[in-house]
């Protein structure tokens, strides 16, 4: 049923229909509307779950870890500083192979403190062992929830999934969302059947000390599973599409790439702006949207970029002292003798990425191709001259 709905509420509706037994979170802007709505569902008896209001994000992640270890389907959500505070637990959850689903309302990291959107929070958790999906709009954020559980709870996967949605732009943005039917979700997502759990009938120990004789293999197994999910993700997306009648999750999205000499690569809601820009442009520009940042779909990207002469990576995060992390990874896939690649950083801390920003980017691509790490939309009056050339 189509509803004009806020992004956070679209996500909360999806979580309700996935029927987690335990939900725990800690308030942080711009994530709060998600758990507020879930708490209301529980208070109204529309969701039969234990909703535990903890004293920190570290405990929120730890609490859902404990409940997941009991064989429960669980949910948490956070953003920015909260994600970073959770980070110790998030690595632990992946290592313990628990199929936890969380939403990260992407937001900049302090200092300076800033509550607005960029991708630095999630990107900093790149190596944690969580699958990371980036939604472009609220429909996707809504639809990714049940698909995330389906991927995570596959006994061949048993890894956590982070659904990323841009803070404010999506979480607080009102859009028309085709809200799923509960009975269709029930059909798509059976109840979770844990392959291992804390059980007094079959007492087992979890979280054991892994010394040098075993640790390396546990990481290899995790890595291999992560690579295997490159097949699981589109498969789940196809199953979703056949049941729900709209597109499901995939690793990447290709937009107007066929025959375009220039391909822009980006993630999240800015891709909507880029699509509009492409539609209004006389030039041959395509977009490659990375949906799955982890696992990183190398082959799919390489294949999609085959005909591109110029590749332009636009991202909302930076590996300080190096360059944009997405740029680094895309560059490693390309033959730089035949393909020019440029890297741009924009939108940090919620700075709007507009058509003017994209004009600036395309001008730089033409005039000085091969920029590795160029910031866009910079107010040079805020920088001392010696730092800004």
């Amino acid at each position, binding site marked *: 049923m189509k509803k004009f709905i806020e992004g956070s509420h679209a996500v909360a509706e999806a979580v309700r229909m996935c029927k987690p037994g335990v939900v*725990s979170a800690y308030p942080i802007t711009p994530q709060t509307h998600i758990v507020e709505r879930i708490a209301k569902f529980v208070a109204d008896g529309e969701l*039969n779950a*234990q909703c535990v209001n903890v004293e920190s994000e570290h405990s929120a992640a730890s*609490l859902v870890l404990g*409940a997941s270890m009991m064989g*429960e389907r669980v949910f948490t959500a956070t953003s920015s500083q909260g994600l970073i505070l959770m980070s110790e637990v998030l690595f632990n959850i992946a290592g313990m192979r628990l199929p936890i689903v969380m939403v990260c309302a992407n937001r900049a990291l302090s200092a300076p403190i800033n509550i607005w959107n960029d991708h630095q929070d999630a990107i900093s958790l790149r190596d944690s062992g969580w699958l990371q999906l980036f939604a472009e709009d609220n429909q996707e954020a809504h639809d990714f929830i049940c698909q995330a559980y389906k991927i995570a709870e596959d006994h061949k996967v048993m890894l956590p999934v982070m659904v990323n949605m841009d803070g404010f732009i999506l979480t607080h943005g009102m859009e028309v969302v085709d809200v799923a039917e509960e009975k269709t979700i029930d059909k798509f997502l059976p109840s979770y059947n844990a392959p291992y759990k804390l059980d*007094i009938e079959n*007492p087992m120990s979890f979280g054991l*000390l892994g010394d040098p004789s075993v640790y390396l293999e546990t990481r290899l197994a995790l890595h291999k599973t992560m690579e295997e999910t490159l097949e699981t993700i589109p498969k789940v997306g196809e199953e979703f599409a056949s049941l729900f009648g709209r597109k499901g999750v995939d690793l990447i999205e290709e937009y107007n790439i066929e025959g375009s000499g220039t391909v822009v690569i980006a993630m999240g809601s800015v891709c909507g702006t880029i699509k509009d820009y492409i539609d209004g442009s006389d030039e041959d520009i395509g977009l490659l949207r990375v949906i799955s940042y982890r696992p990183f779909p190398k082959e799919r990207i390489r294949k999609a970029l085959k005909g591109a002469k110029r590749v332009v990576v636009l991202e909302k995060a930076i590996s300080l002292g190096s360059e944009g992390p997405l740029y680094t990874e895309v560059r490693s896939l390309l033959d730089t003798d035949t393909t020019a690649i440029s890297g741009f950083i924009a939108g940090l801390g919620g700075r709007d990425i507009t058509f003017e920003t994209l004009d600036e980017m395309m001008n730089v691509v033409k005039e000085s191709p091969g920029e590795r790490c160029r910031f866009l939309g910079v107010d040079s009056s805020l920088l001392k001259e010696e730092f800004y050339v």
Partner: protein
Amino acid sequence: MAQGKNIERHFDEHYFVSGHTACSGCGQAIAARLVANVAGPKTIIANSTGCLEVFSTKSPESSWRVPWVHSLFENSAAVASGIEAALKHEGKEDINVIAQAGDGGTGDIGLQAISGMLERNHNILFVCYDNEAYMNTGIQRSGLTQFEANTTTSPIGKVTKGKLHYKKPVLEIFAAHCIPYAASTSIAYPRDLERKVKKALETKGPKYLQIHVPCPLGWGHLPSLTMEIAKNAVLSGLYPMVEYENGEVVKVFKISKRISVDEYVRPQARFKHLIKDVGAMKALQEVADKNIEYYKLG
């Protein structure tokens, strides 16, 4: 043959079994068995990082015959809260949930998560095995290290000698959450310990039990003296055994034959510097005197 039967019986009777790698004379291992045996098979344990976790569960082996999980250092109270929430969701209210940690995992890095667990009224027993320092990382001082004790981070130097600060009153902090039950005990009094575990598990809501467990390696005493030293801690007044219900003291272990702090510290290398320092010994004696006065242990 007889030996085989004994081992079989051992595995039938205990829920924390031998084969682990604790040091000889480890007070924590003794306490852990007493706690697990009272709790019995209908128990789930969340364990913080620390000696107990390391010596009992080196992959692929485990000494635990009840479901047991270790996640991180500071989060066992939050993990246990998730376990308890799951049990509530499943309508299983007759299973004991225990979270446990050393003194560092309880009173320092774990304090916040435990405070949250107590405030939210989870039906969980939190057990602190208090050996008064970070033993797992090599004997560094914790908030619960006794005043003046020598540790690797509160060493005996030319200017300062031992821990400069008093032992953190963690039992009192948790009791101040007005939880239904909070108590301290010692492995020197196994019956007292067992009674308190039983009482805690029969009480609904959040409970806290702090157990004094000597560490021969960290305290610098003979493994054969573990029990005697634990007993002397209580008899000197340095480790009061008390019980709180809903924030009020309801019972204390009265000291029948009081001993001096000197007698308690003498066999322990961590207090060696007090033997020749009359002022320092007096200062620690004052701590014991204050405990006795405050809790009316005499």
